């Protein structure tokens, strides 16, 4: 379970002070898919950074599995991210000059997973995103959709508990985007992974169990959890 309590984050000083997050609180149950929905500059990305320990808000708590990660030391947060979280970005951030294998292997190396296990996991992750035949290809030779699939393989290789996706389909056409969405939803549902999608796309947000709307750094609304993903596609929120 992820509990976000009274988070406040400001940028700048005095006259230039800008409140990015203002008293944000909500709770996410384990295994849920959550959309953080908001316009550009609404504070949705800042919220994701705070929840993943990349950023430190001035006030509030982010409690994951009973531990306030904002109180942890840098080393402990790094370890937390290396073992329990992973990320997918709008612009993929795959290493173009490296092979698919080396791209996916990076989180395992960071988490000190032994060599033998690493190989098994990397191949399994690449097969899960249907890139099993591209193990030795350089990432720069992949198409946009393949790159994002590679990024998903990198994100799921270490069996994270929480998967953050920042506009995962933002740089893709709708057909490819659908493939990516399906991959994300089916993986997280099958593995009980909490999926947190940051997006401004209401269609994508509608496919999630919970929608958190954010505007000007404040929570506008938090929808009630839906029972199954199937219903979500029919019943759009507002």
């Amino acid at each position, binding site marked *: 379970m992820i509990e976000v309590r009274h988070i406040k984050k400001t940028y700048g000083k005095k006259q230039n002070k800008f409140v990015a997050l203002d008293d944000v609180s909500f709770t996410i149950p384990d295994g849920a898919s959550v959309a953080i929905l908001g316009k550009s500059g609404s504070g949705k990305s800042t919220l994701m950074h705070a929840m993943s320990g990349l950023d430190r808000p001035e006030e509030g708590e982010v409690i994951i599995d009973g531990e306030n990660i904002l109180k942890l030391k840098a080393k402990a947060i790094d370890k937390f991210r290396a073992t329990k979280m992973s990320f997918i970005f709008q612009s993929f*951030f795959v290493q173009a000059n490296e092979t698919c294998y080396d791209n996916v292997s990076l989180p395992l190396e*960071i988490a000190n997973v032994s060599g033998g296990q690493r190989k098994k996991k990397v191949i399994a992750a690449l097969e899960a995103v249907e890139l099993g035949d591209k193990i030795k290809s350089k990432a720069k030779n992949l198409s946009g959709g393949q790159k994002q699939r590679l990024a998903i393989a990198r994100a799921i290789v270490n069996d994270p508990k929480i998967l953050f996706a920042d506009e995962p389909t933002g740089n893709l056409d709708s057909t490819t985007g659908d493939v990516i969405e399906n991959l994300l939803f089916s993986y997280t549902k099958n593995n009980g992974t909490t999926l947190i999608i940051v997006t401004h796309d209401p269609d994508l947000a509608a496919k999630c169990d919970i929608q958190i709307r954010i505007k000007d750094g404040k929570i506008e609304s938090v929808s009630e959890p839906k029972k199954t993903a199937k219903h979500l596609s029919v019943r759009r929120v507002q």
Partner: protein
Amino acid sequence: MRLRDITRRAGRSLRNAKARTLLTSLAIGVGAFTITLSLAAGAGGRQYAEDIVNSNTNVNELYVQPKQENQGDLSKPKEYSDTPSISYGGGFSLKLLQQSDIDKIKKLDGVQSITPVYNVTPKYITREGQKKYQVGVEAFLNTLKQEYLAGSGNDVNRGDAVLPDSYREALGFSSPQDAIGKTIDVVVAGSIPGVADKTFTLTVVGVTKKSELAAVSGQNSVQAASENVKEMYQYAQQGTPIANAYTAATVLAKNQSDVDTLKEKIKAMGYEAQTAQDLMSFIFQFINVLQGILIGFGALAVLTSVFGIINTQYISVLERTQQIGLMKALGMRRRDVGRLFKLEAAWIGFLGGAIGSLLALAAGSAANPWIRDVLSLGQNTNLLIFEPWTFAVVIIGLMLVSVGAGILPARKAAKLDPIEALRTE
């Protein structure tokens, strides 16, 4: 993150920027090249000097000179001393060893023999039907390493002489072989008016190629049996105040272990004494200074390349901002990010060191025969000697220097804010 994985990733990112990596490491390679060559030249020089000293001096030998007095205040007249000395203008004088000094030293424990150094400058050398030439005559030493064009130095007795090839030619012998067994005339002037010149007729038993020592001492004199040289010397000094006085003497110790104690004893008696070792250490010091200067140039090249590494690594950090941000988002620790960049610098240092020192090895090996020819060193003498440890020292040293240069860029990478780095434009 494991060091092995970081090292592998560091190597991979360098391979992805091959041209830049190569150019940066070439800069450090210039330093490695210079340093390796200077170390090789130092090792070779020491080896060569040791060979020369060992083949030309006896380790049991001591070179004894009278202690020269402080010349003091030159503006004041000096008291006359009855001991023999060579006076130069302006109050300078060189004290000489007398026969009594020689006898005193001879009585010391451990002395096998003592031979005065005879400085003979004959009037001229000639032979029948030939011109007269200036010449220096030295006592023949069988420990001297020389190359013979004809004859040998195995059996030089009273009345025998060894000629350098240049005198062989000047004196009209058609070939080195032609000179063997023929006679030459060395004419020594009388010491005081009224004493006639004396001709010493010597038989040529050997003709030598230019000596290896010639490069060091410019030696190009006729060598005669020491008895003859002694006679010439005495004839030339006869009746003068410096008869039976010598600038120096060579003491031969009975055992090598006695040499140092003898040196102390002779010094205590008020003479200057130098062992073969002392002579060698002087030459070594000279070589070491030269080597130090060369290494200094190499160090300068390395210093320049340090800025190259810092620059390259800074650019690399800027280029890979997103990669660094991603790695940090994935939980890579600051220390490991820093290590990644330091290891990249270490790889550059390794490459530069390896390239530079291997080029030095190749160039040095190719140059050795040429140097041998130009300086007419003996066969199998290499002036550049590459010892395996120098490669290890140069490469490891340069890796450390590179890591040092990589510290600042590595710190910049480690400090990078992942949120900034991953912000999509």
